């Protein structure tokens, strides 16, 4: 190399007066003197952010650019491994389609065939505009006119929402674990992500295809369980990955798991097979024994067979095995049908009772509560003034469902109905963070909703369908671009925390949502964003304080140097359970589940929302391919290559033969609300009355170069619902019924 810095400077503002004054060579805005001439390489401990176990990562970084990731030894979640999604981290971080700058829409027409006419704006301009819009809208139309489609996290964001009195916040939880969270609060004391698979001797799975979900902590647990001699029994209409792994698989009729669970409880109670020591000491069985025994008598295995197609003898045998093989567990988790059917509230209650009867709540081999470091939130570090009351109508109708209202979660499945039909014109401003309407049942309604709302902000890392329709788009940093602390809540028999360390600064002008919370807060409710000393909260100082108070280090830098902190302690089973109103005991009979609140103190039989008819004779099921996380990973070219940009429908060979469908034919799947067309892939691994379609495909945004406008949206045939429908169905914990559609299937000529 013969050119030196001196030479360079000659042409970029240095020695040559003639050239230095030349605009051509005035490159100061684009080049500067190098800080280092060496390519710095280092290793950083951090945590994955694609799914909730947040597996530990060892990241190799060169010059602030992620080059390689591997699992973190000693980590409870990943056990030193990463799944395909975690290992494809660079594909997310360096996706060419990433949103790079805040942008403002200049084209007022909204639609996927419309060019938004984006222009870049500064963060200051974007935040000023958003804050002004919120203030004006709230003043003119009240707090109920603001819709926030976001999680109530992180803590700074929650503080912001509380500080401006947001009434209408919705999230995806009704499509996930809302039902489980509500029911477990009253039956066992709370939602838990931890199951002690490896010490279990009998694992009963209602629908949860654990091995295909690629949560390493769960998959490894299942493998260890089998190695230790556990029996695995699976109820699922599909002969799934976990079905193949199980000792016993039953192709249950969709939506009838509840019948099997109720009949099992009947057998276990009537034959007194339950774990007497646990049930006598830690549950309210004795108090409500008469009601419990009487109630479950009606659910005979023969009745359950008629509802579920699972043989009565098998139900009876499995119930006895489950009760007699100790410890046993029926994992309750978000994918244990919690969100899928209108009878999910009853099903999750029944599964919870099975675990209580097995005596394995917070016991070895059962479902337990994670032992965690207590990480204080911002409100603990800097206590806020009293938040304003939340006043106004709930657009998703959750005020009609007392337990959902109490929980605080929102509902995707009813939001569009609320905006468009129940309360037209009420919502004047929407802020989406990391969510897109593609995730909703009947996403077309979501599109209509976006067109109907006068002003929308979308913050995301990719130009999703919702970003495409937004008035302001904000580029979001992702998990590899920020510092945080992750306290293990999966498989944590002792506290463990991992430092989520930024492997690189946010690319271009991307920022994290805490930054947005703080900046909007300063503009709209500054009194909530000051420290006791009167200064505005500093996010780095806040993190340091959290680390210090949690006992993980003097500050984040010290914690980061450790990477992973584990506090060794013995697992001491709980003797008092934190059940709501349960007096420290697990509740089989839940007195708080009153009829007046649309619930039942003991689970009753309810059919799924829709059953096959002459017009729509088949069940419609969806699944998430193992290589993907909901709909957020489909633009990753590595993952797209593994599964393909489009997905075929899984069609049982028997159904296909009757309908004249051959492998690779295009088929049309139609429900009462819409239809999709896609290729057929014939399978023997699915009940002959079901058809399955993968979720997460069919992004409409033309701005997504890998996943945009490819494949179909599974949600186009899934009916959205109104809050009144949930009430009528007794769906008191708000399940979104995403597996409840029935369809017809035909070959497209």
């Amino acid at each position: 190399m013969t050119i030196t810095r001196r030479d360079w400077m000659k042409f970029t503002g240095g020695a040559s007066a003639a050239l230095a004054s030349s605009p051509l060579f005035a490159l100061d805005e684009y080049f500067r003197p190098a800080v280092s001439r060496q390519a710095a390489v280092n290793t950083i401990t951090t945590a994955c952010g694609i799914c909730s176990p947040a597996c530990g990562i060892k990241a190799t970084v060169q010059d602030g650019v992620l080059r390689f990731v591997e699992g973190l030894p000693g980590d409870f979640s990943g056990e030193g491994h990463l799944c395909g999604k975690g290992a494809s981290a660079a594909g997310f971080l360096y996706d060419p389609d990433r949103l790079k700058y805040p942008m403002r829409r200049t084209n007022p027409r909204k639609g996927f065939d419309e060019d938004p006419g984006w222009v870049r704006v500064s963060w200051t301009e974007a935040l000023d505009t958003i804050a002004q819009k919120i203030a004006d809208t709230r003043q003119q139309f009240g707090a109920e006119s603001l819709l926030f489609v976001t999680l109530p996290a992180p803590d700074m964001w929650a503080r912001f929402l509380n500080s401006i009195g947001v009434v209408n916040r919705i999230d995806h939880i009704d499509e996930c674990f809302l039902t489980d969270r509500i029911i477990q609060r009253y039956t066992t004391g709370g939602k838990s992500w931890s199951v002690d698979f490896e010490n279990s001797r009998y694992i009963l799975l209602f629908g949860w295809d654990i091995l295909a979900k690629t949560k390493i902590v769960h998959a490894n647990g299942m493998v260890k369980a089998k190695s230790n001699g556990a029996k695995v029994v699976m109820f699922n209409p599909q002969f799934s990955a976990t079905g193949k792994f199980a000792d016993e698989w039953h192709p249950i009729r969709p939506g009838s798991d509840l019948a099997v669970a109720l009949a099992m409880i009947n057998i276990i109670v009537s034959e007194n097979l339950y774990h007497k020591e646990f049930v006598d000491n830690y549950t309210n069985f004795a108090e409500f024994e008469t009601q419990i025994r009487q109630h479950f008598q009606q659910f005979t295995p023969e009745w359950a067979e008629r509802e579920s197609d699972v043989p009565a003898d098998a139900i009876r045998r499995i119930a006895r095995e489950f009760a007699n093989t100790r410890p046993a567990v029926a994992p309750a988790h978000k994918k244990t049908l919690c969100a899928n059917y209108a009878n999910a509230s009853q099903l999750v209650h029944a599964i919870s009772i099975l675990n209580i009867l097995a005596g394995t709540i917070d016991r070895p081999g059962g479902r337990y509560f994670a032992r965690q470091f207590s990480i204080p939130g911002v409100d603990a570090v800097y206590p806020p003034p009293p938040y304003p009351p939340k006043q106004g109508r709930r657009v998703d109708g959750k005020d009609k469902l007392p337990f959902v209202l109490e929980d605080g979660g929102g509902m995707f499945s009813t939001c569009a109905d609320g905006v468009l039909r129940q309360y037209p014109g009420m919502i004047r401003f929407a802020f989406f963070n990391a969510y897109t309407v593609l995730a909703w049942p009947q996403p077309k309604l979501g599109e209509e909703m976006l067109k109907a709302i006068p002003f929308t902000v979308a913050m995301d890392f990719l130009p999703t369908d919702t970003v495409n329709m937004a008035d302001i788009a904000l580029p979001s940093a992702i998990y590899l671009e920020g510092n945080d602390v992750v306290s293990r809540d999966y498989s944590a028999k002792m506290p463990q925390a991992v430092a989520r360390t930024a492997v690189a600064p946010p690319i271009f002008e991307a920022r994290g949502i805490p930054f947005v919370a703080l900046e909007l807060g300063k503009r709209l409710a500054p009194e909530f964003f000051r420290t006791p000393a009167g200064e505005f909260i500093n996010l780095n100082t806040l993190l340091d304080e959290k680390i210090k108070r949690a006992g993980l280090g003097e500050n984040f830098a010290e914690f980061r140097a450790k990477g992973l902190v584990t506090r060794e302690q013995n697992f001491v089973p709980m003797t008092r359970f934190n059940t709501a109103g349960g007096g420290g005991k697990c509740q089989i009979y839940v007195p708080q589940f009153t009829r007046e609140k649309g619930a039942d103190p003991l689970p009753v039989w309810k059919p799924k929302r829709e059953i096959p008819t002459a017009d729509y004779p088949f069940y419609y099921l969806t699944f998430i391919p193992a290589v993907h996380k909901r709909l957020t990973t489909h633009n990753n070219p590595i993952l797209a290559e593994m599964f393909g940009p489009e997905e075929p429908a899984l069609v049982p060979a028997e159904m296909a033969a009757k309908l004249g469908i051959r492998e690779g034919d295009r088929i049309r799947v139609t429900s009462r609300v819409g239809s999709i067309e896609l290729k057929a892939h014939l399978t023997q691994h699915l009940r002959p009355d079901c058809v399955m379609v993968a979720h997460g495909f069919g992004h409409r945004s033309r701005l997504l170069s890998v996943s945009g406008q490819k494949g179909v949206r599974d949600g186009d045939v899934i009916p959205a619902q109104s809050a009144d429908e949930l009430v009528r169905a007794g769906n008191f914990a708000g399940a979104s019924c995403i597996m409840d559609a029935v369809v017809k299937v035909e070959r497209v000529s």
Partner: protein
Amino acid sequence: MTIAQDTAETRNLAALYLLAGRSLLTSSPQELKAVLDDAEEALPSSAREPWRAALQIGSQDLEKEYVRLFLSPDHAACLPWQSVYADPPQLLGDAHHAALAWYRRCGMEPSRENEPADHAGLLLSFYGTLVASGAAPSELALFRRQHLHWLAGFSRKLEAAARIPLYRLAAELIHALVQDPEVAP
């Protein structure tokens, strides 16, 4: 090392690369006009007026087209980063590191530290400065081979996707610079 003679020929060649580079780096008509004033002599006389006319455009209109083409493209029409054309396509790939190494050997690095170093505008600007600095032909050839070859395809994409004359002119210029042996040293 000998500083190259500041000959008109060398300067003109450098000016073309710098003009091409700057047209991809900024959406400010004012900045581009100033650059064009400085580079006009280097352009063939037939190209001067079209460039002048192309820059008679409002700031927002130019910004909209800049964003549409380079930052939020419809199916990635012409992303301006070299690593995006690797397999798998990504930002900040090997080409970024290689470009950064070139810059650093000259004691420089990109001012915007969270952005890729293999932006077409940076690469063209850097090369223009190498030319002006009198880099050895072997070095220039090596840089072209490592970092400018992909611009032929890029310029064709840009030409096809552009909705305003400025970017069609920029595409023509880039294509000429990276394809034409008479122009490229």
